[in-house]
């Protein structure tokens, strides 16, 4: 009887370990992803500097993930609005080295009109490695 009682915590720990293992196994191969990457080529082709509106930008790139501001050299007046778009796809989750694809796009406005854009994206060669002391991105 006492042997049975002593083994209860062990059994619970073993059950928890197996459950976590199953959870980890279930997560392997799964990727974390945001909305799809934006079509920058199409946006560059269709958006006209000085005439395209915020509605045009939203139609082509969607609702921005953030709204910031820019005060750049040579720019007169105060800061101007910048819309930020970001996408991320990383995985597989639970693996020691996951791969990531990222895209960042900034759209500049001048008095509510499209004034230019800047963007970049990474391919899936970006590897996120788990280390013992901290995560690192290479």
């Amino acid at each position, binding site marked *: 009887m006492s042997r049975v009682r*002593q083994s209860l915590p062990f059994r619970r720990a073993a059950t928890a370990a197996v459950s976590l293992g199953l959870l980890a196994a279930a997560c392997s191969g799964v990727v974390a992803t945001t909305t799809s990457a934006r079509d920058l080529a199409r946006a560059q082709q269709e958006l006209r500097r000085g005439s395209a509106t915020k509605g045009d930008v939203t139609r082509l790139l969607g609702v921005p993930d953030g709204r910031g501001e820019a005060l750049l*050299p040579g720019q007169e007046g105060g800061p101007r609005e910048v819309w*930020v778009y970001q996408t991320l796809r990383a995985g597989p989750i639970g693996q020691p080295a996951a791969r990531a694809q990222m895209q960042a796009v900034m759209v500049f406005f001048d008095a509510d009109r499209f004034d230019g854009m800047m963007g970049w994206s990474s391919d899936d060669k970006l590897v996120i490695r788990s280390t013992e002391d901290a995560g690192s991105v290479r």
Partner: protein
Amino acid sequence: MRRTSKRGRRSAPRLVLLLCAALLGCGTTTYGVPPDVSRLAALRRGESTKADLLLALGEPDGRGAARLAPALPREDVWVYQSVRTHGVLSVHMESEMLLVLVRDGRYEGHLWLPSTIDASLR
């Protein structure tokens, strides 16, 4: 023997709570401190010094350089960055990047880029 058994009974709900927390996404990771961009309004282009910048925004997280057009001189770039993620199975990420342009030791401009994205597992 009784004590061991009670401890075992107590640990089970805690474990379940921890698992639920993990599954519901209660993990929060923070990197850096969001810059106080309201203080940018106090800076004057071509006038505010590096000391003014340090007083307003603190020590930058990184430094770089930029040349935005052939006609423009090279600028130093001070970088302030913060990232906050929340969740495990559905990740909510808030990030802020502030690039401050410094020319000849004086504030020349800035680029503030905040964003909030949600990533789900697929």
